[in-house]
């Protein structure tokens, strides 16, 4: 049992790296491995973004049936409404699973440096607060696929020391669903005009796959019955009468005392019947005051 506990985080880390969008299917495959004989081990559902830059070199651990090959696809950019031109290349490792599914891992990006012409164009974008647009093929294997996925950002948003950019590439198998492009941080609204100190891009790329939806909970009858019985609020532990109701008793006592003293002081005034009538709402206000305050809290 102890060894299992050690293995679980290790496995999680491993499976993070060899992540696939078909969470269920990859599970099925790995059941063959003896380490994965854990039934009901917590299934990692969310795809942690894989930072390609800081990707540590990991041991190669695939089942023999898997094969991988390198592929490349290009990033195009456009300044404002100009035509697209090549701006860099993404290279990734294509992993083919034994059941036919394919995924990309270990994405790397190499950007071409800006030519002088590009710099001039980019400066114009900055001046006119216009869009810098990029595009990727929608099929990484056979570019361009059906269409290009486009993303754009106001050029001024990219400006830091140099030029900071952040790609989030949403994948579905080997298809690029969408690319989200922008600055890695915030882009404060009144965008001020300034020019970059150095013309080099600092790129971050993230590959994202779809999350698995949590399953709707299925309860046993027992719990259900429990829930149904729970029409009234769960009773707090029993306490003495005084401890439970002192907050009602004190105002009540005050009212009674007030009424009594009034009746004693002015026995001639018959309108004392109004005293409780005044007392009631005040007691109500005592009750309502804290409760509304508490709900707002």
């Amino acid at each position, binding site marked *: 049992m102890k060894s299992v506990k050690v293995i679980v985080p290790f496995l999680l880390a491993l499976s993070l790296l060899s992540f696939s969008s078909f969470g269920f299917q990859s599970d099925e495959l790995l059941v063959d491995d003896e380490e994965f004989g854990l039934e009901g081990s917590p299934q990692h559902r969310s795809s942690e973004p894989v930072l390609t830059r800081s990707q540590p070199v990991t041991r190669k651990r695939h089942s023999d049936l898997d094969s991988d090959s390198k592929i490349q696809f290009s990033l195009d950019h456009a300044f404002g409404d100009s035509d697209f031109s090549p701006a860099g290349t993404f290279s990734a490792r294509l992993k083919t699973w034994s059941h036919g599914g394919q995924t990309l891992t270990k994405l790397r990006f190499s950007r071409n440096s800006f030519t002088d012409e590009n710099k001039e164009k980019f400066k114009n974008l900055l001046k006119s607060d216009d869009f810098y647009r990029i595009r990727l093929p929608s099929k990484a294997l056979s570019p361009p696929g059906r269409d290009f996925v486009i993303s754009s950002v106001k050029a001024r948003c990219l400006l830091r020391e140099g030029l900071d950019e952040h790609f989030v590439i949403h994948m579905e198998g080997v298809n690029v669903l969408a690319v989200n492009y922008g600055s890695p941080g915030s882009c*404060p609204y009144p965008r001020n005009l300034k020019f970059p100190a150095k013309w080099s891009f600092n790129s971050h790329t993230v590959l994202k796959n779809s999350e698995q939806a949590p399953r709707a909970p299925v309860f046993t009858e027992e719990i259900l019955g429990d*829930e149904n019985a729970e029409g009234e609020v769960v009773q707090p532990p029993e306490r003495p009468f005084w401890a439970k109701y002192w907050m009602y008793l004190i105002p009540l006592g005050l009212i009674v005392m007030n009424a009594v003293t009034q009746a004693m002081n002015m026995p001639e005034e018959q309108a004392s019947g109004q005293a409780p009538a005044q007392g009631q709402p005040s007691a109500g206000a005592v009750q309502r005051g804290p409760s509304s305050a508490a709900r707002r809290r």
Partner: protein
Amino acid sequence: MAIRSFFVPFLLLVLWFYSSLSPVLSLYEDQVGLMDWHQQYIGKVKQAVFSTQKTGRRRVIVSTEENVIASLDLRHGEIFWRHLLGSNDVIDGIDIGLGKYVITLSSGGSILRSWNLPDGQMVWESFLQGPKHSKSLLLLPKHEIDCINVVQTNLKIEKDNVIVVFSNDRLHAVSCIDGEVLWKKDFETESFETQQVIQPPGSDLIYVVGFAASSQFEMYQINARNGELLKHESAIFSSGFLRELSLVSSETVVALDSTGSILLTISFQNGEISFQQTPISNIVEDSSGPAVIIPSSVPGIFAIKINSVTIFIRVIGKGKLEVVEKLNQETAVSNALPISESQQAFALVQHAGSEIHLVAKLAHDWDANLLKESIKMDQQRGIPHKVFINNYIRTDRSHGFRLLIVMEDHSLLLLQQGAIVWSREDGLASIIDVTASELPVERDGVSVAKVEHNLFEWLKGHMLKLKGTLMLASPEDVAAIQSMRLKSSEKSKMARDHNGFRKLLIVLTRAGKLFALHTGDGHIVWSHLLHKSEACQSPVGLNLYQWQVPHHHALDENPSVLVISRCGPSSDAPGVLSFVDTYTGKELNSLSLDHAVVQVIPLPHTDSTEQRLHLLIDSDKHAHLYPKTSEALGIFKREFSNIYWYSVEDHNSIIKGHALKCKCTGEVADEFCFDARDLWSVVFPSESEKITATVTRKLNEMVHTQAKVMADQDVMYKYISRNLLFVATVAPKGSGEIGSVTPEESWLVAYLIDIVTGRILYRVTHHGAQGPVHAVFSENWVVYHFFNLRAHRYEMSVIEIYDQSRADNKDVWKLVLGKHNLTSRISLFSRPEVITKSQSYFFTHSVKAIAVTSTAKGITSKQLLIGTIGDQVLALDKRFLDPRRSVNPTQAEKEEGIIPLTDSLPIIPQSYVTHALRVEGLRGIITVPAKLESTTLVFAHGVDLFFTQLAPSRTYDSLTEDFSYALLLITIVALVAAIFVTWRLSERKELQDKWR
């Protein structure tokens, strides 16, 4: 900590009240009809059959385009019974068999049903299969002129009356008693298209005539007793036929050749086919253009239409034709009605300005009119589309006629003795868009209804109420109180009320008619049929937008709505804009556009007269600004760079984001036209995903607070953006019906996409899920409904999205010192820091529509309004769809109002807002905020209409409407009197004491 323990019992008490009260919204029996109303419609009538032979209730059976079969009272137009068939169960034909069964043929001729005429119970149902799809024809042998002859039908097989049905390329004879198929007959000829099934009266023969291969006329003669083929003849006409036949006698039909210029009289007497050709130009002098045959079945006469002229032609003897009349107005012709042994009558309805002319004639005698009347008709009803004739015996034993006519606006009218006996606004059964408008402010003299007549009545009313309150009322008094409450003229007043309950619902129907319905009792305040102009003959209404909502400085103006319509059926046909005053229903202006309208974007800006700016996107992706004023252009220029929109290309699963670029670079300089550019695109892999639903937030939704306080004193900030789009895609295989795929090959992916930058903020896959997906988006959450193939149940999921970039504003000192970023402007180009929470629950019903309540300030908690498959509207508290629910919530979470997690959502019978009623054919639910924060107005429409007021957290901000002010007043008076009395008594006592 001490303070905390002090509050706990209070909180528990409050919580207990809250949880025990709030989910239950039910009404008491005597509250039904106080704030809600329900109207029943049937839709545009396709076919009508009268049932008046027998004594008793006179009725008409109708089938409609909304797939309703209904039995209407001929005297008042009320519905006796009504059945709504499914949306894919289109009615092909109806008739009455044996005088007591209603026979319907539906679903492309494959389902034949029989209903009991008096009460609408189904008697039998039979399925008719055939080799291929074809035109469906229903034929009930009709020999009876009146009921006496019913017994002597010649077509009897073991005393059965036989229904002859041609459907799915097969001829069936079905018993009228039990729906059993007696015989069936297939037609071998390839590409045979049946046009008519004819049974000559008094014979055992059935003729089936039609065309094969477009130039061949085919005739089959069949024995009606056993389906035996007696004769098969065919003849070729070299220049081909138009696919329409008019039956002029039992053995003669008239057709047109393929050019529409030659009339062919085809007779097949004794099984011999013979053609007679008559060029139209020979009998009609100034004929130009191709002709079309108007389907009719008047013996000896048929009608053709050339351009807009209707020409009636009589067939004399051996194929000789003679023009009897040419009518220039829009005309509708009824079928023939046998009125005696040898006479058949038919009716003609012509539209002439503000009147319609009715003529009833005998088929063999064109010149004599049995009936000639003119009736004034509301111009807003348009032209007559259909007419059905029925006769009755007048008190002087002569023939009288009543006509049922269907107008252009889909209304149904019964005309008799030169007057409209009743009318039904059945256009309201097909509402396509709804918007709400305020009523005029109450001014002196505007007030329509006097609330109370005099002091005595007023006092009497309040005495009754007092009795009711003190439970002293007798049953008669209770009835009186109830009727008083229901009839309260207050609620149908034509002026704004303080709480904003009274409004006008402006609805656009499929017929292109606008109606204004009063929310008080649902009566029609005005109606307006969209005008036809020179440029546009048949505008198709598409959408309604609020064009001008005056408040503040433009109060003198009347509010108006913008109606977008399209000129013709194709999606790139030019658009038409109409501006309609919502107080009067007058059309203020109408613009025929030179571009199509693909998308309409109401901008969040108004000009000085409170006209809202709208951006219309045409099919070439140009954006056009309306209104076309320089002021609007000025406002627009200021916001030019901040306008973004998206477009969904359903067919190839691409969503694109756009922004404005520059002025149009077209040949004509138009300063209100702008070019667009693509900013982003999301390309869904066509082999694995297909867009099935896209939902955005309502534009006018109010959110009261951005912060949400958790039980552990933590604050979460809702990610509230108007630019979020929810998209659901399903596997292309799984887009069919539920159960057509296995769970392994079906999935559903839900996306939250920012429409300015195209960022996918959240993406989640539900494996083994299948559409149809219904979703609703409000504040920072979206709820969607789908089918779970693994669990064999429907499921509802909720996604809530929270903003993390503001999460560090919890420090009080930061807030005090102003070092927070709560008021800073946000740019969507920043990288969003959001977290999402989601949860799924099982849900019992399948859903037709989902909406959410909306209130004026957004303080009141929300309820989901779910249109169930049973055509009811269920209110479900949003608290049940809270992703923070857990099986065992902590004490603190319980205090906050978190309900312990259950696997399915509860359906509490009392929370049906439609209580006992059904909104047949439910299509949409619209919520409109009232001025009173606690209350929202709900309008559900389908074939029926339903309206009610809802208070999701009960009416915490007002006294209930049955609060007795009189009782309060009387109590105060009594108390004051008591004070005086006791004061006098005490003074007297004091005096006595002093004298002692």
